[in-house]
């Protein structure tokens, strides 16, 4: 853990910036909310209409030369990444926030304030876009057995082969089952693209914005089923309209063997400009 | 699900737990020879019908030896 400020020489401290919020929203409650049970001491640096949500960190730990090998230490890394996300989620409960990318560190308060003032216009524009909104993640997985039992049966060859396979014996049964598997697999391949489009179009119409993210590898998704879709949507904080569309979509698509998995609400990582425009 | 169905299911899952451990777990001290087991999809090829007496927690364990003697 990062040592509390008192013991470190002042000059050795930099500012780790998690994100930027609007001063008018960053009320006392946000300060209190952040302080409550904070594993990581978070401070609000107000500069005009904007507030930088940041922590003092040891420059030695985040020194640019030391960082590349630090990044090969999975435990240090996961702890820092989770802290970054955890702080922003606590902010999101009280205010809209423009999240920064991981590891944005300033040598001193002067540099941080200069950023908030020089880039104020672009930051305010980004904030306006996400004000009162949150990001929701939607992933879709296909359960092969349910797909084979349901949707695949609409394919005549599959239905016909299934009938034969169930009566065959010994080696022939094994071979027919193999062939059936291949047929179902190719039917699934065709169906995946169609399912992803159907999901994205339906959800986009109920959201303010949305985009398709790359599929995640099974070891990362933690699910044994195959992922067929991964998307992010910018929606109003109460999410009423979006959840209505999402619920009926989930119900309709379930018969095809597709399960939806919801994540969030997130800070709007996917809906802020990567490169801030000129200040 | 009837009792006997549950019993069959429990035995089959136990068998899969066994195969999963032997093939996917355990420490790997690798030489240059790897026996490709992928070709033999043990679950489909007959093994799943091997309802041997691989016991679960409750029953006394005569375990694999009976399984080993199966077809």
């Amino acid at each position, binding site marked *: 853990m990062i040592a509390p400020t008192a013991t470190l020489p002042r000059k050795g401290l930099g500012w780790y910036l998690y994100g930027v919020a609007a001063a008018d929203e960053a009320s006392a409650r946000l300060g209190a909310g952040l302080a409550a049970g904070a594993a990581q001491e978070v401070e609000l640096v107000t500069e005009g209409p904007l507030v930088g949500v940041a922590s003092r960190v040891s420059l030695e730990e985040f020194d640019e030369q030391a960082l590349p090998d630090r990044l090969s230490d999975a435990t240090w890394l996961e702890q820092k990444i989770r802290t970054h996300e955890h702080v922003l989620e606590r902010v999101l409960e009280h205010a809209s926030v423009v999240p920064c990318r991981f590891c944005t560190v300033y040598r001193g308060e002067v540099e941080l304030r200069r950023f908030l003032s020089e880039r104020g216009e672009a930051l305010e524009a980004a904030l306006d876009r996400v004000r009162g909104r949150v990001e929701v993640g939607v992933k879709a*997985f296909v*359960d092969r057995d349910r797909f084979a039992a349901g949707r695949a049966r609409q394919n005549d060859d599959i239905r016909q082969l299934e009938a034969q396979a169930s009566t065959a014996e010994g080696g022939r049964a094994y071979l027919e089952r193999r062939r059936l598997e291949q047929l179902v697999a190719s039917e699934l391949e065709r169906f995946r693209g169609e399912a992803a489009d159907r999901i994205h179009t339906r959800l986009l119409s109920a959201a303010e914005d949305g985009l398709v993210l790359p599929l995640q590898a099974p070891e990362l*998704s933690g*699910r*044994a*089923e195959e992922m067929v879709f991964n998307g992010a949507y910018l929606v109003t904080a109460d999410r*009423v309209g979006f*959840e*209505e569309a*999402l*619920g*009926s*979509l*989930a*119900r309709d698509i*379930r018969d095809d063997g597709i*399960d939806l998995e*919801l994540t969030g609400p997130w800070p709007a990582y996917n809906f802020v400009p990567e490169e801030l425009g000129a200040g | *699900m009837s009792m006997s169905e*549950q019993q069959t*299911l*429990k035995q089959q*899952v*136990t068998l899969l*737990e*066994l*195969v999963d*451990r*032997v*093939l*996917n*777990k*355990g*420490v*790997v*001290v*690798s*030489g*240059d*020879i*790897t*026996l*490709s*087991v992928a*070709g*033999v999809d*043990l679950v489909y*090829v*007959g*093994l799943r019908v*091997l309802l041997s007496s691989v016991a*679960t*927690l409750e029953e006394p*364990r005569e*375990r*694999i*030896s009976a*399984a*080993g003697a*199966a077809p």
Partner: protein
Amino acid sequence: MIHLYGVVEELEALPPVDGVGAEPLERRRIEGLELVVSRTALEGSDVTQAAVLSHANVVEALMARSGAVLPARFGHAFSDEHELAAAVRTKASALARGLTLVRGCVEFGLRVLGDDKAPENGSRELSGRDYMRARLAEEQARWRLAEELHEPLARLSRASARFGGASSDLLQSAYLVPRQEVDVFGEHVRRFEAAHPHLTIVCTGPWPPYTFAANGEEDA
């Protein structure tokens, strides 16, 4: 070709059991580690269920006759003694750590298969949002249920692992349980099973510590 079954500690005597391909078991001592092997002429095509089961059989028998066993994964063989020795030498410290971890423990596997109540009854009348909220509530209940069973078992165990099984599985996990805790472990599972008759709970074991055999390598 030399087939490795595992690394053992305080093995009284080789069990009266045949190895893979009905070959006799032999002992080797390399880098202070004791290994049990057999000289087996297994070709790729010989890999049958009998071979897999006899590997499991030998490891079981070793469990009963030694202080600790680190099961070797089936399917990794060595062309000669020299290659076996070299491979063991590179992993000697990790294997030693593994033995210390598993000493005096047995492994249990747990699978809790989802309940069979059809989630779809009467869901057609629900609004989209209510349907979604119902599914989320269902998910949350399943997560709490899995935690309710897993937490006390993990606390009893020297090590535990949870696997991302199919979403329909409520829980898929393994536990390295010290022998003196086995009865309490079993009691926990039985009490949970009695309290949740609609769930299919399959607790398997006691196994040799397959799942935790490689843990020694992690702290390397």
